[in-house]
């Protein structure tokens, strides 16, 4: 998927997230993963790490080699997406305490991913 299509999907999902409250923490965390993965793919494509015909689905399923490159080039967004994925295990598929707090953390991580993707987009708009 190309950059402008990822952009549109991420924006659509973030718009849907606005209908939910952090008390709906499972759905909120999942939404941050979905939107965040679209922002992450924009960054991966732009860095020429992953092609537009091979979107990353989950950060932990990237090859070891790709993750090592990403850890150097895109350390902050990778950490943000990893944290969202970790929250899915503990608070979506698990029942660790403070779901609303976990949702707020996931939203903060999503803001990091969005910020990084949009920072690059200002220099080179999607098209």
């Amino acid at each position: 998927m190309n950059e402008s299509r990822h952009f549109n999907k991420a924006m659509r999902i973030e718009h849907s997230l606005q209908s939910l409250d952090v008390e709906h923490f499972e759905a909120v965390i999942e939404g941050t993963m979905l939107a965040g993965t679209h922002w992450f793919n924009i960054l991966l494509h732009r860095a020429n790490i992953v092609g537009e015909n091979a979107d990353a689905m989950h950060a932990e399923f990237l090859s070891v080699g790709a993750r090592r490159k990403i850890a150097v080039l895109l350390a902050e967004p990778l950490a943000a997406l990893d944290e969202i994925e970790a929250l899915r295990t503990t608070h979506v598929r698990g029942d660790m305490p403070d779901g609303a707090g976990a949702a707020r953390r996931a939203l903060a991580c999503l803001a990091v991913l969005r910020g990084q993707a949009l920072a690059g987009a200002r220099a080179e708009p999607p098209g």
Partner: protein
Amino acid sequence: MKIDTHIDKFRRLDEALKHLRPDEDYELWIWTAMNACVNLLNAALHRSGLTDASDSFHTQVEGLYARPDRTRGTTSDAIHAPGDVMHAGQPVLATPLPDTIACASSALALIEGLREPFVRGDGIPTAVETADWERAYRTCIRELSLVLDLAISP
């Protein structure tokens, strides 16, 4: 997880779903409906004795669980007999499913099949399609409610 925990999660996800429109918010609607159904499926599988209501969480990797240390607030990886399933048919269970759960699993599989075209891909659903999705959701919930003897009006 425990049966009551799955039911609590189902109720919260089902409530979240009421804030989303399948025609406008279809990405998050699909994902939330899927998660709601998976939680009720796990509760039904545990209640039927087909999987264990173990205190562990399914990870993103099929068959790999995260076992919580609730005192420390940490988890550690574990592999054990099927506890929570991740999706319909993942993992495949050794025992055939009773008809009600098989019917619910088929409905869930329809919803899970929407991820690739409409969530990861950029397909745009028609009104007929979203009506089918809502019907599948109601079918899944209705069948699993029977197994769990729950009063749910989807």
